[in-house]
């Protein structure tokens, strides 16, 4: 049983960055692919995704960077005090080095800085949080940034209109007597191919074959695009996410119905509605942002907090459960409280703000 608890750590603030450009799913372009089974209206109704933010220039790290600069300013943190940075993304700037190393310098952080990348998707914010909470809880490092998001892909491929681009930052700090975080984390690698980009890693190196279009579940896809077994992922999500929430509540003896907000990874509306129904949650306690931003991978939980809860929770004690689940297959649920946190205004990023220094 992968349960973890870290005390003496708190969330100080959350911010999110998205491309300024809005892509409407009611008016798809030739860069989007919507299955021929659906009209645009039917797609929006079925998925709950009307529009999303897209840029062909801004990388995941550009969006995280913009969010981080804003949050550091809003928190009035001294950059020299930030001693750890964890970047969670499936779309790093380079195959190597780790993007967290670039972000350390780009953000102007001290060289006395722990930096690492984590390659997870929909479960990534919860996993990243467990990582950073673990780093801070001993009190040696006092302040850290968790950057999560997915944006520009490794190759220019048609875009799945379910997915939007976003980058987020969660600022955490050591503070004695904070109740901290309780986690349940799980993995099922037998579902490795439920969501997979087959080529471009070292198992299947890029070749001319990678660009050939093949029929995958009724869609024409190249081997550089994500292949998704929709029914398998749906079945996994509606069974595993509720189970994980229940297991965490049981392990730590709390009632999950008593928390103020339950934030799920924004997968798609049908899956999320089913999860809420199974747990008999009050829908008012389960905010969502997928209608305007789509599925934003590891950014979706903090982005939902920024979009839906800014102005509602900052100054009062608020109890959260957050649950991420998806590609891996991988899942995680966390319970924590916030009080006196900073939630920055949504940062809308222009294409000209893309990094031009760490480019060769």
């Amino acid at each position, binding site marked *: 049983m992968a349960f973890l608890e870290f005390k003496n750590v708190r969330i100080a603030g959350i911010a999110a960055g998205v491309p300024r450009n809005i892509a409407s799913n009611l008016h798809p372009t030739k860069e989007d692919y919507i299955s021929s089974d659906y009209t645009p209206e039917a797609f929006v109704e079925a998925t709950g995704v009307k529009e999303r933010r897209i840029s062909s220039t801004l990388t995941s790290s550009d969006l995280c960077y913009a969010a981080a600069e804003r949050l550091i300013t809003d928190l009035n943190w001294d950059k020299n005090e930030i001693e750890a940075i964890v970047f969670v993304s499936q779309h790093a700037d380079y195959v190597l080095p780790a993007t967290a190393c670039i972000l350390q310098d780009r953000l102007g952080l001290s060289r006395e800085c722990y930096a690492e990348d984590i390659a997870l998707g929909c479960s990534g914010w919860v996993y990243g949080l467990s990582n950073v909470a673990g780093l801070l809880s001993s009190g040696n490092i006092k302040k850290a940034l968790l950057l999560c998001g997915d944006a520009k892909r490794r190759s220019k491929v048609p875009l799945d209109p379910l997915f939007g681009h976003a980058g987020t930052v969660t600022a955490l700090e050591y503070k004695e007597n904070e109740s901290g975080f309780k986690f349940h984390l799980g993995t099922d690698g037998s579902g490795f191919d439920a969501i997979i980009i087959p080529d471009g890693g070292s198992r299947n190196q890029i070749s001319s074959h990678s660009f050939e279009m093949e029929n995958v*579940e009724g869609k024409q896809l190249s081997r550089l695009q994500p292949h998704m077994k*929709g*029914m*398998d992922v*749906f*079945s*996994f999500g*509606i*069974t595993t996410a509720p189970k994980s929430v229940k297991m965490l509540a049981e392990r730590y003896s709390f009632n999950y119905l008593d928390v103020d907000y339950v934030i799920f990874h924004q997968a798609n509306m049908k899956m999320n509605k089913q999860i809420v129904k*199974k747990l008999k949650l009050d829908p008012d306690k389960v905010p969502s942002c997928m209608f305007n931003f789509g599925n934003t991978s590891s950014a979706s939980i903090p982005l939902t907090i920024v979009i839906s809860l800014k102005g509602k929770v900052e100054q009062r004690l608020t109890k959260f459960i957050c649950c991420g689940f998806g590609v891996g297959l991988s899942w995680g649920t966390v319970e924590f409280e916030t009080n006196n946190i900073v939630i920055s205004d949504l940062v809308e990023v222009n294409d000209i703000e893309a990094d031009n220094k760490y480019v060769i």
Partner: protein
Amino acid sequence: MKTLDEFVVLFAEQFDDTDKSEINASTVFHKLDEWSSLIGLSVIAMVDEEFDVALKGDDVKNAVTVEDLYKNVIAKL
């Protein structure tokens, strides 16, 4: 345990426009006009709720009739 007849009723409830009388145990459901991957997701959700069984996509794809799918669900109980 639910019977085949009860399963057929639950299966038919996942459709909006298809007349219930069109769906019985021997219906080749992939050939129904209204059948889509989205209805497939509803069927998976129904089986999860009513039987506590997690179907895979291949279970739905490889079943020909409604009874085939029922047998598959029962085998996973």
